[in-house]
């Protein structure tokens, strides 16, 4: 058995605050988590959940109140191990007096790449993130989305084994998001381990082998995303067309726009409802699961009693 790519043990961060710093705010509480080699792991939770805190702890940007973490089997204090790690900070910002090329070259020097390697890698990375024509522009002229791309480029510049991305899709347009998804999937194909945080559930669903759900500084569950989807699918929507009048009782519950209706029913009653709608002479246009929004989903978790929390706590480990 290999050591997990990333492993945390009781990782805890408290921030003192208030009068004379007497009060303590726990941003991350006893995080125990493992990310296996070669998997894409999604770290999901609403804003303020503690995702960034956990990632900054892993990157030694802040220091834990308690607990420890290992990456590639080595303690995170081991500086040499960080050669094999790439990191994209949340809302990245870089030296605005440098061009993208200069910035990447600077970071490549920090990684001890040789002059010819540097040149090649920098151009490769710019191309990969779609900035090949913007390489010679100073970063002060970059938009937020472009900075996010530069951030992505510097995270994978040195061909790391483990890539940790904090909200990699934020600030990007739909095209940019898809490009980031492609990059992440390409990394997986190359055998890299990717851990990324997001508050957008669909991003995690699309990419991740496993996700960890964090709310209020606590890890609430780890598992495959499909299992999470199950939890949050609560009802189904039938979308149909019906000309003329009908007295079917179910129709009273539907929302109507012209001849088209939308009807929400619990999943268990779906087939019964479809029968009734058809009996009324309607033409069914679509049936789609109605997903609780992420907020609803997380709200459930926050307010969760044991049963609900357990529902998310699916097999995984």
């Amino acid at each position, binding site marked *: 058995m290999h050591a997990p790519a990333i492993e945390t043990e009781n990782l805890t961060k408290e921030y003192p605050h208030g009068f004379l710093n007497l009060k303590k705010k726990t941003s991350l509480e006893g995080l125990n988590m493992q990310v296996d080699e070669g998997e894409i792991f999604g770290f999901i939770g609403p804003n303020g959940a503690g995702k960034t805190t956990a990632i*900054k702890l892993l*990157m*030694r*940007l*802040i*220091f834990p109140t308690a607990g420890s973490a290992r990456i590639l089997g080595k303690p995170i204090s081991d*500086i*040499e191990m*960080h*050669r094999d*790690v790439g*990191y*994209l*900070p949340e*809302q*990245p*910002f*870089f*030296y605005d*007096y*440098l061009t993208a090329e200069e910035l990447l070259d*600077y*970071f490549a*020097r*920090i*990684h*001890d790449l040789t002059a010819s390697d540097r040149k090649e890698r920098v151009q490769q990375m710019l191309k990969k993130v779609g900035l090949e024509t913007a390489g010679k522009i100073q970063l002060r002229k970059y938009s937020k989305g472009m900075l996010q791309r530069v*951030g992505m480029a*510097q*995270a994978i510049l040195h061909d790391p084994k483990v890539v940790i991305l904090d909200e990699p899709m934020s600030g990007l347009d739909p095209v940019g998001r898809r490009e980031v998804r492609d990059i992440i999937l390409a990394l997986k194909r190359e055998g890299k381990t990717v851990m990324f945080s997001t508050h957008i559930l669909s991003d995690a669903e699309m990419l991740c082998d496993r996700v960890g759900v964090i709310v209020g500084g606590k890890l609430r569950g780890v598992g495959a995303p499909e299992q999470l989807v199950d939890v949050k699918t609560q009802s189904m929507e039938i979308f149909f067309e019906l000309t003329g009048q009908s007295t079917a009782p179910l129709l009273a519950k539907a929302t109507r726009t012209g001849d088209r209706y939308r009807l929400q029913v619990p999943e268990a009653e779906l087939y019964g409802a479809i029968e009734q709608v058809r009996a009324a002479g309607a033409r069914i246009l679509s049936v789609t699961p109605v997903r609780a929004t992420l907020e609803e989903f997380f709200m459930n978790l926050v307010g969760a009693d044991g049963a609900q929390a357990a529902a998310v706590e699916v097999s995984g480990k």
Partner: protein
Amino acid sequence: MKRAGVVALNTFREAVRDRVLYNLLFFALVMMAASIIAGQISIGIEQTVIVTLGLSAISLIGLLISVFIGVGLVSKEMDKRTLYALLAKPVRRWEFLLGKFGGLVLTLAVNTAAMGLGLFLALMYAKQTLERGDATVFVAVYFIWLKLALVVALALLFSCFTTPLLAILFTAGVYIVGLYVQELRNMPMQVMSPGMTAFTKWLSYLLPNFENFNIMAMAAHSRQVPGKLIVQNTLYTAIYCAIVLTGAILVFSRRNLK
């Protein structure tokens, strides 16, 4: 250590691309020109006027750069979060700090050397002759640079544990007191309580002593500087900087980036 060099070169590049620097250099040139004119109307003491004005300008501009850019070296990177991506790479925090320090000290070296050369040319223009003692101007500029390195180290230390504004005030405060350390030591001890005497004495050795770095009078009269003083000042700066930077590293290595 190699990484500290990489950081230093980038810091130098940042300074070179900063417009503020050029404004200050322009101001320095204006001062030199003014000193030539002032020298011409003060017959007999023109060398004194040119050298005093010139060295004061070099020192003042250097101090402005050291304090303001020095305090911003680390704090600006923390505020703008440019530090995050860098410190997650295989760079130790002390390497980063030393690189930042080295980069600004390098910038100051280029700056003061350029201004020193300007002053020397202004002096030559006014005197129209050259004697051996004239090289003292360069030693004076070297001492100014040493002093500036020390100020940068202090600015860096303060910026590691307090707000930029306070760090600027502390650095300026320590610098000003450092100019009068000799007076502090020579205070009439008999009028003070024994506790006060001990405190003053202790303080006068803790604070940087900038007294020996001022050789304006020697330069104004083209007197040669004893080699011993050059060695002494160089060693003093090196040791003092090492101590201050060690303090800064100890603080910064434990610091949580917000």
